[in-house]
């Protein structure tokens, strides 16, 4: 290889035209920006879709939210594929060693039957909630306008598949295929789960992808994650430390990915009063529905008190308010 002093060979430019326009000048750009900005076609589409009479192939009017610039949605994590898989690969390595640790020492044998059943009843049906979240985020990813939203939504969808698979492994550890099957049966038939399943299925037929984003990623996860991975896992006591190990991925993931979720809402709300109103309407609508659905899971299955659930709701309201949504006024 020829070694040459870099000083002697000057670059002619630092980045691509479309990136320079966003940066406000020709400056070196991050791999996140070069790899994410404006990958989606914006004009000169050829054919009307055989499956959609109303819209162009890529069309901002697939949501009621309006943005002057759909590339304002900078992901605070600045994930491109390489940094995304790297982050997840480190997390999966930790998860793998946690699972290994629990399996090798057979740690679940120290958990009494009642606690074990409780874990199975709460955690195993949730794999279907995660699968629903995967479908909803795949929907967001396929219809969201612009690569700046569509790419992290794809990562988010895949994360939910990964989490559903970790929950499956927990089910297998707790009692094998039978336990996993029982969890599915509960998701399909147990009255305590029917509310959440109905909310999930109703979201499958919603048309506005931004509404699905609010309902699933802000409201649904904003209630389920603290309920399950914070309170339920903690409340299960000493025996919960094993479960905490097995669900570490989920709680870390939630802390990290909610930064992205929040940024999307904050940016859309800051754009206009109209957006802010719309987001608040969706938030209120889905919070009422989801909260009613989550209540029997919290009280009947997880043994989480009404007061705790109220605290979770308050925390979510506070978060939404901080993001610019007017909670009380509507």
């Amino acid at each position: 290889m020829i070694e040459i002093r870099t000083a002697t060979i000057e670059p002619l430019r630092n980045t691509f035209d479309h990136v320079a326009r966003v940066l406000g000048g020709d400056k070196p750009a991050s791999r996140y920006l070069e790899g994410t900005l404006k990958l989606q076609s914006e004009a000169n589409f050829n054919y009307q879709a055989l499956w959609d009479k109303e819209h162009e192939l890529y069309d901002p009017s697939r949501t009621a939210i309006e943005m002057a610039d759909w590339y304002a949605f900078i992901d605070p994590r600045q994930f491109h594929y390489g940094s995304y898989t790297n982050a997840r690969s480190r997390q999966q390595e930790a998860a793998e060693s946690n699972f290994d640790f629990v399996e090798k020492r057979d740690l679940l044998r120290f958990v009494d039957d009642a606690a074990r059943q409780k874990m199975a009843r709460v955690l195993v049906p949730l794999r279907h909630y995660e699968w629903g979240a995967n479908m909803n985020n795949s929907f967001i990813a396929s219809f969201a306008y612009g690569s700046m939203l569509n790419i992290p939504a794809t990562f988010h969808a895949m994360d939910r598949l990964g989490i559903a698979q970790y929950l499956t492994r927990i089910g297998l550890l707790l009692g094998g295929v039978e336990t996993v099957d029982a969890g599915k049966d509960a998701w399909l038939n147990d009255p305590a789960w029917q509310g959440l399943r109905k909310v999930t299925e109703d979201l499958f037929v919603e048309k506005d992808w931004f509404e699905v984003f609010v309902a699933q990623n802000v409201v649904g996860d904003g209630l389920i994650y603290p309920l399950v991975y914070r309170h339920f896992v903690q409340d299960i006591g000493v025996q919960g430390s094993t479960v905490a190990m097995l669900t570490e991925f989920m709680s870390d993931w939630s802390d990290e990915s909610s930064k992205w979720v929040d940024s999307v809402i904050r940016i859309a709300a800051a754009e206009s009063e109209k957006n802010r109103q719309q987001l608040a309407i969706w938030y209120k609508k889905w919070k009422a529905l989801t909260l009613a659905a989550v209540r029997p899971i919290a009280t009947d299955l997880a043994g989480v008190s009404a007061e705790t659930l109220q605290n979770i709701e308050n925390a979510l309201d506070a978060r939404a308010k901080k993001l610019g949504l007017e909670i009380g006024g509507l």
Partner: protein
Amino acid sequence: MTVNALYPDYQGKVRDAESNFHGGRLLYVAWNRHLMFTNPFAYLVQPDMKFGDFVKTVMAPSFETHPDWAKIDWTKVTWHRKGESFAPDCSKTLKENGLAHKAAIQFSTPGLDGIGGLGI
């Protein structure tokens, strides 16, 4: 055939209808055995232009870089359209010659077979 779509009666927008060309229309021309011009050309023409003027003012600037162009004996040139011979009247307009929107015509120059007689 009809297009099989999710909704009834899938209909496309005709992107290149004559009305989209602001009074002009499209005419395609290829010179046989002269592949130095690798493909037929597409021209936007006024329908009331005389065919002779079309050759002189529109085709010539495209084709005159070929050494054969200056040697063409226009009385011997043969024209084709849709695989059949076509006899344009130079004194008549494109429209009068029946050249509707998006007509494609080819011309051959007997005795002139491109560079080195190789069809180039």
